[in-house]
């Protein structure tokens, strides 16, 4: 029962990671560059959900939508500010722009939203659903369900729609995609906005799951998104989802087996091991070399 409970907790946490990782993976694929502003994207999404809930008394669905929309917009801004001006320059320049924007956004939201942690009200009457001997809350189930639905929709989007296929083409090879008539600039903008919007949704879910939003919440969760992305494999949506869930499970089992102080050491060690044994990640494409 102890182990099952730990694994289930891991899956819930992991499904939020999975959503972050999918978003991060899309950005990484399409921009070809790690981003340091993703934590702030998640935070802004969480705050959008928070304002929706506290001021407009919105429900779960609208809160998620608000997070999606706010971070989508932020994604467009990020693309305009950090990526587009430096498209033809060395990649590192765009990276430093994301560091600068991250500092700017984080401190700006401390100034405007206040420095304190905010309470995210319970949107649903949280209660237990007994499942054998483990305890599951309805919120946990809702989160897993939401992430699952989103992942399915994304999969359909990427493989069935023209835009989705264009996105994949651009993240594989920009020149070739351009030759095939894909509007590369617009697709990059769209991909970055979509990746950010997913980050925003995961921010709202984080806020709901832990009942709190905080201007400085982004930094540590962004690290998790990053780790989960590498776990699963860059540029692979199912991989990122799997990586997120595995990371959640590893973390919880890590605490269960070792001391909780070693939890992040364990996940980072696994990260490095995976990089050494299978750099492309569990389900990643092999040819990606950057």
């Amino acid at each position, binding site marked *: 029962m102890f182990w099952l409970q730990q694994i289930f907790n891991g899956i819930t946490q992991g499904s939020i990671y999975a959503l972050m990782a999918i978003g991060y993976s899309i950005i990484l694929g399409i921009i070809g560059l*790690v981003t*340091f502003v993703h934590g702030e994207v998640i935070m802004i999404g969480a705050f959008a959900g928070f304002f929706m809930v506290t001021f407009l008394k919105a429900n779960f669905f609208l809160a998620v939508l608000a997070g999606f929309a706010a971070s989508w917009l932020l994604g467009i801004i990020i693309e305009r*500010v950090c990526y*587009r*001006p*430096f*498209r*033809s*320059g*060395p990649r*590192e*320049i765009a*990276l*430093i*722009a994301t*560091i*600068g*924007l*991250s*500092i*700017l*956004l*984080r*401190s*700006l939201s*401390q*100034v405007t939203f206040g420095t304190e942690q905010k309470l995210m009200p319970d949107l649903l009457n949280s209660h237990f659903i007994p499942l054998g001997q483990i305890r599951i809350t309805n919120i946990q189930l809702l989160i897993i369900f939401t992430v699952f639905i989103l992942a399915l929709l994304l999969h359909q989007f990427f493989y069935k729609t023209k835009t989705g296929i264009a996105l994949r083409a651009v993240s594989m090879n920009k020149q070739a995609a*351009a*030759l*095939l*008539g894909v*509007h*590369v*600039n617009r697709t990059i903008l769209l991909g970055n906005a979509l990746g950010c919007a997913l980050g925003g949704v995961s921010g709202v879910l984080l806020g709901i799951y832990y009942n709190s939003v905080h201007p400085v919440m982004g*930094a540590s969760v962004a*690290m998790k998104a*990053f*780790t989960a992305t*590498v776990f699963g494999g*860059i540029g692979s949506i199912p991989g990122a989802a799997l990586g997120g869930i595995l990371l959640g499970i590893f973390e919880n089992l890590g605490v269960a087996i070792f*001391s909780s*102080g*070693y939890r*992040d*050491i364990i996940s*980072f*060690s696994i*990260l*490095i091991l995976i*990089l*050494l044994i299978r*750099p492309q990640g569990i389900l990643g494409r092999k040819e990606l*070399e*950057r």
Partner: protein
Amino acid sequence: MASFKQKLVYFLSAIALLMFPWFIQNDYWLRVAIMIGLYIILASSLNLINGYTGQFNIGHAGFYCIGAYTAAILATRYHFSFWLLLPLSGIVAALFSILIGLATLRLKGIYFSMTTLGFSEIIRLTVLNWASLTRGPMGIPGIPLPELFGFHLASNRHFYYIVLALTGIMLFLSKRVISSRIGRAWIAIREDEDAARAMGVETFRYKLYNLIFGTFWAGVAGCFYAFFTSFISADSFTLDEGFSILAMVLVGGQGNLIGPVIGAASLTILPEIFRNMAQLRLVIFGAAILIMIYLRPQGLAGSSILSQKYHYPKIQRHSPPKHQGQQEVSP
């Protein structure tokens, strides 16, 4: 070969830097100057790795941390002298880099970066958890003052000269290495690894040398920092610290020696100038970074040529996308 005018400039700068503590008479700005020196070593050593072989290390704080803790532990427990610990901390940091390098240098770009990132966090978390060695979150206080011929070096002025000497030695040796066969091999690896191998450059070995040389100085900087502040804790070696060192390199301009110097100086002074902005301080700092790279995407010193002729390509703003038709595939 340096011309007479260049030599004169070097000579005058050296005099100015040596006279600085007497000229300034202000311990606070002297301390800022010392921090600049420290960050010049850190940023320049990162630049050796990122700017000269094109590897992208984003976990430099990890090596800095190793140097600082090596010095702190050996100085407080075994009373090693500062002068011995300077190279020793560098060597320990470099040993870790060999470990990392042997495992990961064969990985391509972004995977190497991720490994360094993970490594940096592992080091910090290990420091926090291994309390019997590092005192964990308590940090290590009471690191003794360095001694020289029986004198205790206590004042900021002393530390200023130490860091000035270290920075000077570091930059001097870096310049000599870079303008030698080794440096050329590094730059060749950065420019095109396949071509470098075809020229007989043992890329793996030279990347490893590069990592060792770069991280050695991060370790030295860590040792200096430990003795300078006399108290260290894991809080000083977060990923954010690594990112800000990276920011110094990139804002200053990587791939030349003067860039990180200017980057370290400006990113250390800027927050001090904005001190009175209170809450808005970091907002302005973030904006300043963005503005600087907008104005000079190649870095503040991007176009100055010190030892190598190295330019970034001119960046074209708002280049219209080539919207090519489907039929244009074959000539």
